[in-house]
């Protein structure tokens, strides 16, 4: 007999999961209908059944280091079929949120970003304050750093490009340091938890595992297997690719502005509407707005059949993405319609929208490691770990394969 698991129920953690949207987890009576219903769950101890009883007993260490929590795309087929209404799909979603929070670095950020009370401050006040200060001090800072815009452009009058890049690059670097710290700890956590139970023997190298996970991210193949969730998969893909396109354009524009002159390439900034990057940006923007807009509509119009449930964790991220896209387009429309000659109130309206856009981008980007945005990175990592240790659908665990072989 393996060494006994010392059960120390953590009621506090149970309450936290309940608060994060897993309100029905105590109802589970372990019939395993969820694991049977799930298209993605296989093997001898399939999710979400085991996660449900772990959650009931508050086995925090197990749950926060469990890659299988991240193999779920929350189609809620399990929740629909659960005879007890325990909503395993929502419990796993809550656990994902708790994992992101748990591995947040610095940890207070994790708590603040996802706290409903701190949200207005975090999301609006702080970005507005920081950006406002930057705008007010732009001339002084520019002079002190000896930075100026190579091209005078419409919005650069208000928020110079160099400032934009210094401001956001600094924050992005900090953000990614935080994110990477969290991810490294998550990977170690998964590994340690497995080792403690004598499990997690690698079946595949880390690199090929990551490649497989990224491939899946690009195709959403596993997501596609998930119940009758075609609509969700498609809007998710749109949001993903829309955002990716805009991210690529932003990087390109930065290079165009500051790297190309150094390399002796002609800078084409500001791009006109026919420039391939501008085309990509507009197409990406449309895809993002349509994708997130549809996702929002789908969630708002979701029938009250219990299949679709959204928490503030979901809503904040979704609205941010959508509004970043919408305000982005508004600022673009102003740029092409308001000529610098016709100054006046219209110009200030344009600046106003631009400022709002920047505030939202701040919210999206800076809080990335702590908001639902982080799910992308945690999921890739967990999926890679699952591939690495043979837990995913395609390469079931060694144990499972053996059992299947025995069965015949």
């Amino acid at each position, binding site marked *: 007999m393996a060494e*006994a*698991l*010392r*059960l120390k129920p953590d009621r506090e953690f149970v309450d936290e999961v309940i608060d994060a949207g897993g309100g029905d987890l*105590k*109802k589970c*009576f372990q019939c395993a209908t969820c694991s049977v219903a799930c298209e993605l769950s296989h093997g001898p*101890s399939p999710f979400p059944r085991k996660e449900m*009883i772990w959650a009931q007993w508050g086995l925090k260490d197990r749950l926060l280091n469990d890659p299988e929590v991240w193999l779920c795309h929350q189609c809620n087929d399990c929740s629909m079929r659960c005879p*007890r209404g325990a909503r395993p799909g929502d419990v796993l979603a809550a656990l994902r949120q708790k994992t992101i929070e748990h591995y947040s670095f610095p940890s207070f950020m994790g708590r603040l970003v996802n706290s409903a009370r701190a949200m207005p401050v975090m999301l609006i006040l702080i970005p507005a304050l920081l950006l406002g200060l930057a705008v007010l001090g732009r001339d002084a800072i520019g002079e002190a750093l000896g930075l100026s815009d190579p091209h005078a452009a419409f919005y650069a009058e208000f928020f110079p490009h160099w400032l934009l890049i210094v401001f956001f690059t600094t924050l992005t670097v900090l953000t990614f340091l935080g994110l990477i710290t969290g991810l490294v700890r998550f990977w170690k956590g998964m590994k340690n938890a497995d080792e403690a139970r004598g499990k997690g023997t690698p079946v595949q190298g880390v690199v090929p595992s990551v490649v497989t996970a990224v491939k899946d991210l690009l195709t959403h193949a596993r997501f596609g297997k998930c119940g009758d969730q075609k609509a969700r998969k498609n809007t998710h893909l749109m949001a993903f690719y829309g955002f990716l396109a805009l991210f690529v354009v932003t990087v390109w524009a930065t290079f165009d502005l500051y790297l190309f002159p150094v390399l002796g390439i002609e800078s084409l900034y500001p791009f006109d509407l026919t420039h391939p990057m501008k085309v990509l940006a507009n197409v990406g923007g449309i895809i993002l707005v349509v994708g997130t807009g549809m996702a929002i509509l789908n969630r708002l119009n979701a029938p009250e059949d219990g299949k679709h449930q959204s928490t503030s964790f979901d809503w904040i991220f979704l609205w941010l993405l959508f509004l970043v896209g919408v305000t982005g387009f508004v600022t673009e429309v102003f740029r092409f319609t308001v000529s610098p000659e016709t100054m006046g109130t219209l110009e200030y309206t344009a600046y106003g929208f631009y400022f709002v856009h920047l505030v939202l981008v701040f919210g999206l980007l800076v809080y990335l490691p702590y908001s639902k945005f982080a799910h992308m990175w945690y999921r890739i990592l967990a999926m890679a770990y699952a591939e690495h240790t043979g837990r995913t659908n395609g390469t079931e665990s060694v144990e499972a394969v053996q059992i299947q072989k025995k069965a015949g």
Partner: protein
Amino acid sequence: MDKNVAVYLCRGCDIGAALDMDALKDVATDEYNIETCREHDCLCSDEGRELIRKDIQDGVNTIVVGACSQRFMIDRFTFEDVFTSRVNLREQVVWSHEPNDEDTDAMAQDYLRMGIVKGQKASLPVPLEEEVDRTVLVVGGGITGVTAALDSARAGYDVILVEREEELGGWMTKWAKGIPHEPPYRDPQPLDMDERIAQVRSNDRITVHTGTTVDEITGQPGQFDVTLKGNGSNGEPLRVGSIVQATGWKPYDPNRLGHLGYGTSADVITNVQMEEMLASGQVTRPSDGKPPRRIAFIQCAGSRDQDHLPYCSGVCCRVTVKQSLMVREMSPDTEAYVLYKDMRSPAQYEEFYKRAQEDPGIFFTKGEITGVTNGDATLKVTADDTLLGEPIELEADMVVLATGMVPRSADGEKIRKYVDAKKVVEKGEEGAQLEAAKETVEELKHLEDAEILNLGYRQGPDLPVLKYDFPDSHFICFPYESRRTGIYPSGCLRLPQDSSNCREDASGAAMKAIQAMVVTARGETVHPRWGDMSYPDIALQRCTQCKRCTEECPFGTLNEDPKGTPLLNPTRCRRCGICMGACPERIISFKDYSPEIVGSMIKAVEIPDEFEEKPRLLGLLCENDAYPALDTAGLKRIQHSAHIRFIPVRCLGSVNIVWISDALSRGYDGILLIGCKSGDDYQCHFIRGSELMETRSHNVQEKLKQLALEEERVRIELLPINEYERLPEIVNEFAEEIDEIGLNPFKGF
């Protein structure tokens, strides 16, 4: 009264078209010289009845009705003061055989012969006229007894309620709260026992004797004489008509649960001890008096365990749910861990279980307990086969063992055995018998003073028990019956159950007790031969005191005088005829069922001579399952061999061996006996009938050997009613087998 027999043949339901009706009529008129023999197209119609009624007015007092099965149209063919003999021409002849065939005609004619003979030999039962008291005695004043008393009183009957303890109420007065019995079934519910007790106390029809037990009960239903002992006794016997025994349950002895830590630590307690703590308003650790912060509840402690109680008591799961909720309510810091084999919360109680599950301080897992040991100041519970998929170890400040219910019954038959053995030992005569008796005394000495009802019954002073010491009788079909007519076990004595079910059970038992008095007063019997007014008549002058009847009666109907002569208590009788089947002297008979009547029916059949090469088989079919099963097969038009002749019997146990030997010497080639299933998951309506027949059949095999006949010529089959499709197969296979063996060599002698 002189027999005036008339025969009526129905042509309806395919009978007329399939049979040679003239030849059939000739059997009655020519062979038996019956003057009145009529046919009708639909005998059960008003016109058909009118036809019969006219003849009755002209003096007919016995009618032989050749129509459908005796199980149908009973009211249509029942006439006052007229004996009806039914001949089943429909289900068992025309519907199950080739029409217009000589074998089918021969079969119909034989059945008519049997029916006429029965009509000639049998007579209408004369109901017993006994004085019947209409008081119900209720033994036990817990929730069941109190409810039975109240219900009987409300139905208009006087009740004597006897309780061993000084106060009424039993367990229900010792607990703080109960399991919820009302919507929404979510929270422990206050108990209302005091109110019920007040109702009993204020009811004029109920006489309560607390601190009282039963000293002796003699007599029979309608005429039980009860002597009490203790507070309520005045030495005089009380007369009652029927009895409800509601002596309840006791907790399983936790001292046998050392493997679950009982005895190793004071902090391992039982659910009953927990109830006491909850009732006192303080839950503390027995070892140090501190409130426990973590309590582990171990379910099925000594239940569903072959080494302890093999059964499920059905309530412990809900009791634990209740206790954990109450503990959590008293001190919200407390955590309750429930380790179960299976959580059983049937029906609406699921809501109650859900309520506990939703409580964040109550944790559930399945698990087989592997140990409860002392840790440092805490207890360590280890379990395997858990829902967590691995063995677990839990620390707890207190462990509560959910022990099950043991019925407070007394095994009357074993007590009788013990008393008999003690007598042998006291006599002290040397021999093997003495050794065996000593062993018996040693083995059963725990039964010393175990008597509860102290019945004056030859077979023992208390209700016989079946599985696990519960004194029920036919669990599947007649759950409220016992094997002592007029005495009804109820509540947790009959089946482990919660108080709400106990109340229902008590109402059922009260109704049965009342019913027993009412039908007894009419001279009828109770289940399963409802309305039967016949009763055994024993020709005592020919009795050899062999005691078979007194021993074999499943209902303890017969007592014995010191010589061993049976003393009949007719209202105890269920009219199964097992005594009649047992009697080697054939001196027990009923007015419409006797060795002679059936024997004559057997002899009435025409046995084809050896040159015809047609075997003749006799089938004795139990009326309870096998006969209706054959009817059903007929209804489905499933064919069976036309060489067999069936006679319905009240129970296989009522088959007297003489019928078999007579049939064999008459030239029958084979005999098929079909009864209900015996055994632990039994189905025999008289509990022991088919089992007894199986025992007696050993004697039959002996007889066959003596006659140099093949053993295969007599076969016993036990058949549940739902397997009716198998019945024709059984008959046909038997017919084929007899064909292979060949004809009975005694034919024609």
